[in-house]
């Protein structure tokens, strides 16, 4: 896309690799927007949103097979050449999450997993103890683990030490659309992380995604902010551009903030 060529061209003067790629566990992605597939009314709407978003990595959930279900979402993602990221959504214990991850590996021929171990239905917040336990087991079992975590800088570091390929702190609880409630914690996580930090959950609009990247995140993961927007495909374009804008702003080095004004025209 013409824009991408621009980006490539543009990043040259900076010391960034050109093009500016996202690398997770040695795998290279051209897009820093990770999508979820939940919440879309139908596959046609989902397809338009995914195509527009430019995403190259997208989550699916594992559920009991039923006659009606079919494997539509898998076929779609394969057709679009998007890498699958199965999640363990709905799991409450390390044991459940580990079994679900293993079934996903078996079914989808991938050892990547978005690890979710939530504590309750009202907040869908991660259970820190079960999450860390599951992460350790799955790393031992050879998985590439991308854990959905809260914004606690300590837990993020523990997950990295446990061998996770990335850490995915929330901006705010899943589905709230409250954006990034605690930018300071995200900055603390980024300041100490040796793996990619992917802002996961809470994104409500494009500026939330843009801010995540400006704070130093390597990517953004979102689903319903796009799939449940009035116009999912258009919101997908907004998120695509918002992520790109935030990444470029982070690399470009913003101007400092001042208390008093400073003229942009020469004195008369």
């Amino acid at each position, binding site marked *: 896309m013409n824009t991408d060529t621009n980006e490539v061209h543009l990043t040259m003067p900076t010391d960034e690799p050109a093009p500016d790629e996202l690398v997770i566990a040695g795998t290279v992605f051209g897009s820093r927007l990770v999508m*979820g*597939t*939940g*919440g*879309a009314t139908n596959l046609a709407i*989902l397809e338009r949103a995914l195509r527009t978003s430019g995403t190259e990595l997208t*989550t*699916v*959930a*594992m*559920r*009991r*097979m*039923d*006659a009606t*279900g*079919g*494997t539509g*979402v*898998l076929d779609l993602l394969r057709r679009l050449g998007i890498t*699958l*990221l*199965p*999640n363990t*959504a709905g799991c409450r214990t390390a044991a459940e999450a580990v*079994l*679900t991850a*293993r*079934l*996903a*590996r*078996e*079914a*989808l021929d991938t050892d990547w997993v*978005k690890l*979710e171990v939530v504590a309750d239905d009202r907040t869908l917040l991660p259970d820190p103890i079960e999450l860390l336990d599951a992460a350790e087991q799955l790393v031992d079992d050879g998985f590439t683990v991308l854990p959905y975590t809260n914004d606690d800088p300590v837990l993020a570091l523990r997950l990295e030490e446990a061998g996770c390929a990335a850490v995915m702190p929330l901006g705010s609880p899943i589905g709230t659309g409250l954006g990034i409630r605690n930018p300071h914690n995200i900055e603390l996580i980024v300041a100490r992380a040796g793996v990619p930090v992917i802002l996961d959950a809470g994104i409500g609009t494009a500026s939330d995604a843009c801010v995540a990247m400006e704070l130093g995140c390597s990517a953004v993961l979102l*689903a319903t902010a796009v799939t449940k927007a009035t116009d999912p495909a258009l919101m997908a374009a907004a998120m695509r551009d918002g992520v790109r804008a935030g990444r470029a702003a982070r690399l470009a080095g913003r101007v400092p903030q001042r208390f008093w004004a400073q003229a942009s025209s020469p004195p008369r």
Partner: protein
Amino acid sequence: MKAIVNGEHWDLPDGSTVSDVLRRLDAPASGVAVARSGEVVPKAEWPDTPVRDGDEIEVLTAVQGG
């Protein structure tokens, strides 16, 4: 022989295997995984893995989510 498949009570002829269950579920060739009483059963072992009386069989596939 009785087993629970995806939460439902099934009656199965003795000697049934995981493959039989999948056939009856009309499962697609790919994108599916099976757990028998909490253990993953690799695809290669489906034909030779018997369903035991009282087994809980979970057959999972990928759906929209996350």
